[in-house]
């Protein structure tokens, strides 16, 4: 009989117990997350009940916003619209820039690329209120004078997008600041995703005589598109929920006027109207319930972006199936 290094039975008992503890701990952690989400949804639902009873589905489709006692009327549609428009523009500007930054960091020598990557990620550390301040006192002025006014003068009459009178507190400035804020998220994740493409794939493209961009198009983008989509969804999620900087820049109009007619019109997003009005909402009126109701809609939009991203990613993974070498 060979030498015995350990007693098999003891080891087995021990590992069985520790495995049980581990499973329980994991289940508890999972349940905790679910419970928190459920409690938040429930709480938001209960608190906003009065507004749903009063306005019904009209709370989502309505455009009135009047907190004056006796003439109360609330509709969240303009703010839903404002959120979707600003986030979409921010993504449209931020996504290509982020991919461009990620590609640059990948192709330049590591000694320059790595610090540059860190630098871009540092943007993430800038508090959103600081972005708001900078946007309000610096960026807005230059952007209004150097971009918005010329555009308005040249195309104001012909293209409705540039029709509004430039003031600087509008959809466009808020969206650009949002774009800057979501760039670090998207570019750092997409860089990781693209770095993960096997070297053999890149070499296959180079072997065929591709230029660097053709190599990206041929080998890297198709291989990593799932991850790139995930990165953009995370950025979108951040843009939808971003509050402070947007509140400081979007002009904060309410009611019908919050539905923008052009890129240079003031508007309002769901987070910004909550941030603007929660402090003055009279507890005996419907006003707090309306704000909580908007919070509930915001949560629903955020969740549906995540769920949509999940399904898209799952479908793409299916398309890509097969052993990858």
């Amino acid at each position, binding site marked *: 009989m060979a030498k015995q290094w350990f007693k098999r039975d003891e080891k087995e008992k021990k590992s069985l117990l520790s495995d049980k503890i581990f499973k329980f701990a994991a289940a508890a952690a999972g349940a905790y997350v679910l419970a928190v989400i459920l409690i938040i949804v429930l709480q938001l639902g209960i608190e906003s009940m009065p507004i749903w009873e009063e306005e019904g589905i009209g709370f989502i489709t309505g455009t009135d916003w009047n907190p004056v006692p006796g003439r109360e009327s609330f509709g969240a549609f303009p703010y839903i619209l404002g959120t979707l428009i600003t986030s979409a523009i921010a993504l449209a500007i931020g996504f290509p820039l982020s991919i461009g930054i990620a590609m640059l960091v990948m192709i330049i*020598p*590591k000694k320059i690329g790595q610090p540059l990557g860190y630098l871009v990620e540092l943007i993430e550390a800038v508090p959103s209120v600081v972005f708001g301040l900078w946007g309000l006192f610096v960026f807005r002025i230059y952007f209004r004078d150097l971009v918005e006014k010329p555009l308005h003068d040249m195309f104001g009459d012909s293209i409705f997008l540039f029709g509004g009178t430039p003031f600087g507190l509008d959809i466009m400035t808020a969206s650009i600041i949002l774009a800057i804020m979501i760039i670090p998220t998207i570019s750092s994740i997409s860089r990781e995703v693209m770095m993960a493409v*096997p070297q*053999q*794939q*890149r*070499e*296959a*493209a*180079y*072997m*065929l*005589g*591709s*230029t660097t961009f*053709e190599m990206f198009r*041929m*080998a890297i983008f*198709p*291989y990593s*598109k799932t991850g790139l989509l995930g990165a953009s969804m995370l950025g979108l999620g951040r843009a939808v929920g971003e509050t402070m900087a947007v509140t400081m820049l979007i002009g904060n109009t309410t009611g019908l006027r919050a539905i923008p007619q052009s890129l240079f019109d003031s508007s309002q997003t769901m987070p910004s109207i909550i941030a603007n009005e929660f402090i003055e909402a009279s507890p005996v009126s419907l006003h707090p319930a309306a704000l909580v109701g908007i919070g509930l809609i915001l949560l629903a939009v955020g969740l549906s972006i995540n769920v949509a991203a999940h399904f898209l990613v799952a479908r793409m993974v299916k*398309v*890509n*199936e*097969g*052993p*990858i*070498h």
Partner: protein
Amino acid sequence: MSTVMTDRSATITTIDKPQTRYKMRTENINIYYGKTHAVQDLTLAFPEKSVTALIGPSGCGKTTYLRCLNRMHDMTPDAKVEGRVLLDGADLYDKRIDPIYHRRKVGMVFQKPNPFPTMSIYDNVVAGVKLNGVRNKDILDEIVEDCLNMAYLWEEVKDILKKPAMELSGGQQQRLCIARALAIQPEVLLMDEPASALDPIATQKIEETIEELKKDYCIIIVTHNMQQAVRCSDYTGFMYLGKLVEHGKTKQVFERPVDKLTAKYVQGQFG
């Protein structure tokens, strides 16, 4: 080592008839990875319409050397290549030469099959051709059929051309990669242990492919498998610790090696 050097230069000049045309030759190639001197002072010539096998134990620098013939080291951050690689007399490491243009003349097949996973079989074959601006569907169809035929794959895939390349077996994928390399009409074909991940039948098919391709191409193949070198090469170079120890006609290298080290290696006494 000086005897080895003279031996080698002697073989290069004497093994062939004077009229042999060399497609590609390298002069005093040195390759460094950081401080590691991976390939040392390698001078070698490859006749056209022939197969040259590079053999040697793991880590002897065969693959490193092969990759420098296609300027693949450009992408390795700390690799440095010195010396000259001449393709039809033009130096590939000349600063005025564009590596992209050059790579279109030298095809390469890698150790692991690496088709583009999101593309169909068809699209994989024409990926390189499309880079050259060919869009005409009839021409593309013809290229696909020709190249898959040359790679001995056409019969197996002609009805599933639109299916993803990843549905093929490993051996089929490797032949697809050969077809993809052939589609850009290279003048030289580099193969880095193309059959090392394959079963005997797939290996045999690849060797048949090489036999057929040799009629038109200059092929340089790195292999661990000495039988393979014997079966499908005309010339053999034996490398050891970054140096070329012996080079000559395959028959001579395996049957009457000049160098003792070569003799030991081809007899399987180390490796």
